[in-house]
């Protein structure tokens, strides 16, 4: 393992940020409606110089009002999922740990469906009604992850195998519940929910929700990053880490709560986008090594890149129809995972 220097960290992050920037520009350009690269570049430069008045109106509505919010949402969702996945994998010392394996997405889906079902019975203003689904999903995610945490304890200690098994069982139980509830909701909501279950970034967030998403991401990811060096030691095992001076219970609580919040935020606004939290940490670990002080920011960038790319494919492959993002990540993710697995064995 190479010792970490500030220079290495900054270099890695700059490189990844550059890739992310290229992907974002590409995603801004590509879509159902053709946008010329030259016009887009002009507009972006004007945008960067805050000459917003001079932006040519040709693409401004499509690029800046439709694509940009969606891409930013994808960036935050991807980064949240990947950081949560990285920290769960380190905390549970299990390469399979992933927000989705732990049942969080199913819990969020149940919360969202329940919110859709009770929405007509509450006299809410339209603005509040719009917030109900993400809020329901968020609480569904948190309740599930707290339940899995309690189920995963053994003699007052967290046992990573028990926790994973508890997560898998909870997920399959909740999935059965989802199938049941989906039969009870009416046609219009049904179509929406079944799309939501496969991951969907097409609904823009309200401004205030975007604030919540961003602030929540930076706070939770920051909290996880403060434990980066502890996570490195935790890879040796909890006892070993304890002997080396790591306050294991504190790290466990910080990482667990922060990663749950990240997952809850991501799932509540985008539905279930699988494979990002599982695969991106592994890919990043192959490239940058398993030092979490580099791995966590790298995974954040990697997750953002992966989701923005997947969403770009979802928007363009069957244009003008849109495909669910979750289907794209699973289609690309599963073969990649198998490839990595075989390569490692060889």
């Amino acid at each position: 393992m190479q010792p970490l220097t500030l220079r290495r960290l900054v270099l890695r992050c700059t490189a990844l940020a550059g890739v992310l920037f290229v992907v974002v520009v590409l995603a801004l350009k590509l879509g159902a409606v053709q946008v010329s690269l030259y016009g887009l570049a002009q507009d972006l430069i004007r945008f960067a110089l805050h000459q917003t008045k001079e932006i040519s109106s040709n693409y401004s509505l499509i690029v800046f009002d439709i694509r940009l919010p969606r891409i930013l949402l994808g960036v935050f969702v991807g980064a949240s999922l990947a950081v949560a996945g990285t920290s769960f994998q380190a905390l549970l010392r299990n390469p399979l740990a992933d927000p989705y394996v732990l049942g969080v997405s199913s819990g969020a889906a149940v919360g969202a469906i329940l919110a859709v079902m009770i929405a007509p019975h509450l006299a809410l203003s339209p603005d509040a009604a719009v917030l109900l689904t993400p809020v329901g999903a968020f609480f569904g995610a948190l309740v599930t992850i707290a339940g899995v945490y309690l189920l995963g304890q053994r003699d007052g200690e967290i046992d990573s195998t028990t926790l994973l098994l508890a997560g898998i069982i909870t997920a399959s139980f909740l999935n059965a519940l989802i199938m049941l509830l989906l039969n009870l909701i009416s046609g219009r909501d049904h179509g929406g929910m079944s799309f939501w279950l496969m991951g969907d970034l097409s609904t823009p967030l309200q401004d205030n929700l975007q604030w919540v998403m961003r602030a929540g991401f930076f706070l939770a990811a920051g909290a996880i990053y403060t434990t980066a060096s502890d996570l490195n030691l935790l890879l040796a095992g909890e006892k070993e880490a304890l002997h080396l001076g790591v306050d294991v219970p504190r790290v466990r609580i910080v990482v667990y709560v922060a990663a749950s919040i990240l997952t809850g935020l991501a799932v509540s606004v985008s539905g279930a986008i699988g494979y990002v939290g599982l695969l991106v940490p592994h890919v990043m670990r192959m490239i940058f090594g398993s030092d979490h002080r580099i791995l966590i920011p790298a995974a954040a960038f990697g997750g953002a890149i992966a989701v923005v790319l997947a969403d770009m494919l979802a928007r363009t492959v069957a244009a003008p129809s849109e495909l669910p993002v979750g289907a794209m990540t699973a289609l690309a993710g599963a073969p990649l995972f198998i490839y990595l697995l075989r390569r490692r064995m060889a």
Partner: protein
Amino acid sequence: MLLRGAFFARRNAVDEPRLSRGAFFCFEADTLVRGADLRIGKKFWRIGLAGTVLASALLCAGLMRAQAPGVPNSPSAPNAPNVGGAQGQQQDNEKNSGTKPAQETAPSSGSPSGSSGGAHAYREVVDETGRTVRLPQPVERIVSLAPNLTETVYALGLQDHLVGDTEYCDYPPEAQKKAKVGGTINPSIEEVAALRPDVVLVTSINRFETERALDNLNIPVYATDPHNVEEILNSTIKLADVLGAAQNGVTLAGEMQQRLSELQQRIGELEPRRVLFVVWAEPLISVGKNTFIADALRKAGAVSIVETTQDWPKVSLEEVVRLQPEFLVFTTQNDEKAPDLLALSALPGWRSLEAVRNHHFVLVSDAVNRPAPRIVSAIEDMAKQLHPEAFVDGPGGPPPAAPEKLEKPNTTPQTIPPAEFASLVQNVAGVCAEPEVTICNR
């Protein structure tokens, strides 16, 4: 310096073998533990926390700023030039801006605002889901997000104003040539926005999310939500008024009602056939009693054996065998279903149905699945197949309907005499025109 000392190794620290790099599951932690520099400095987490909070505040501010100036203009402002990006749109623009003054008075409009306001007139209407929609007047660019709405727009003679529809809009055939914005569930919002619609029409098959996304872009969305044949007629009248062709709507609905009344005279006093409407054969999905299809069946002199409030119930075949429907109703596109029926007849369960043994199948075009004016033809078609005896003699038909026998409350076909209907039409038109409409000139 503190940071470098605490968190990062110094450059000349012991160089260790890069063992874990490239490993897939990097949990071989003994190589990690040797790096003594991995955990130095207990105060690091405070510094890190402060740093992240600061960074997050900065980034949030930056991103909010990037978002906010976006584009304040509303896409529906008719004066905004060239908002659409695609080349085809440019031509449309030219054509439109050229003909706009001429078209302002073109489609006869029931409301006075249609011709008075010019380019800046707006009209507020309440759609069938109770949302208030603010529409620019006159409505010149319509995007339809459902096949039945596309059909209705064509039936109202507004096809020149229809600038985009979905991939499923296949009737009339010319509708397939319109610009496509994707499917009904998953249309591309940017495609819709690029068409600069004055109004986007949605119905109960579209997602709320699509509606909300368009709302956020200030694109007016008008939703229809008919649940039975009467509501299809009323919905047509109201939609016509909203789109500025009120007279066409009343005429069209009048014709539809006329045909339905004639049909009722022929088959009104006949006993309704007990049928099973097959939406999907395996698994068997039928229609609930609150759907417009169930109502169309009633109008065609039939009653569905499935009585549930669920809209698209999955029905047990056992139950069907017990209830023994007289006819099975299938929808078809281009007679594709014919071989399917033979295969179905051979299956256990299905073959013990009287209707299958007697080949009592009713094939009806998929117009019956669409709450659009064409449903009347589908109803007539079903009636002819269900009650052939009522159609053997000439157009005179059997004597006018005697008072219906009230066997089951919801099986009795409802008839509205033409006179009553005329008042109904006026009512609906009046409701549309007066209390809900406010005109604001800007």
